[in-house]
């Protein structure tokens, strides 16, 4: 596609519910990143994929967070047993190469109630 597509745009989850956030990167982009942006803050790194390989997951806040990119294209960020502190905008970005600038999607705003 022309840009990075994320779905859903908005998600309201009850505390304890599992959620799955989808990212469809620009075709041919090798690098894919997930970031978390809390209200009034800059994006914080969560995880990095090069093709299907997850090379860095050091930013994932806990073992409730899991990301995958099985065929080196679409990626899914899963959050199990959501908690209120998980409320944030989750941004996906892709890049031709890890040294290039990122193209971000519009994000998924997750609200845990």
């Amino acid at each position, binding site marked *: 596609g022309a840009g990075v597509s994320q779905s859903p745009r908005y998600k309201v989850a009850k505390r304890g519910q599992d959620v799955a956030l989808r990212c469809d990167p620009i075709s041919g982009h090798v690098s894919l990143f997930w970031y978390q942006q809390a209200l009034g803050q800059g994006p914080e790194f969560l995880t*990095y994929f090069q093709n299907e390989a997850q090379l*860095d997951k050091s930013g994932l806040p806990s073992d409730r967070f899991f990301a995958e990119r099985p065929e080196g294209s679409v990626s899914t960020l899963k959050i199990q047993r959501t908690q209120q502190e998980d409320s944030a905008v989750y941004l996906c970005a892709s890049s031709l190469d890890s040294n290039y*600038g990122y193209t971000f999607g519009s994000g998924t705003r997750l609200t845990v109630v």
Partner: protein
Amino acid sequence: TQLLEQSPQFLSIQEGENLTVYCNSSSVFSSLQWYRQEPGEGPVLLVTVVTGGEVKKLKRLTFQFGDARKDSSLHITAAQPGDTGLYLCAGRLAYSGGSNYKLTFGKGTLLTVNP
């Protein structure tokens, strides 16, 4: 401690005024990028600077990378309401131990340009 400190945090000005926002760190960066983010959207890349002392211009926007590659500034001339948004700087650490793919973001400067 924030790796990249941006100032000011908020800025509200009138159309036609000039402004400068700053991005500072005690760490050295191999490259630094500026993004603009509008409400409900993801950040959009404006510029990448890689050489100490480098100056890049994008219409009314002027970006400068510090000589020591630890800081950067963004100057906007004759601001317009369309410039309103969150301006984020983001950098790749020069000595990142192999994780030079990772962009570290500042908290941003929220700019409002009033007509």
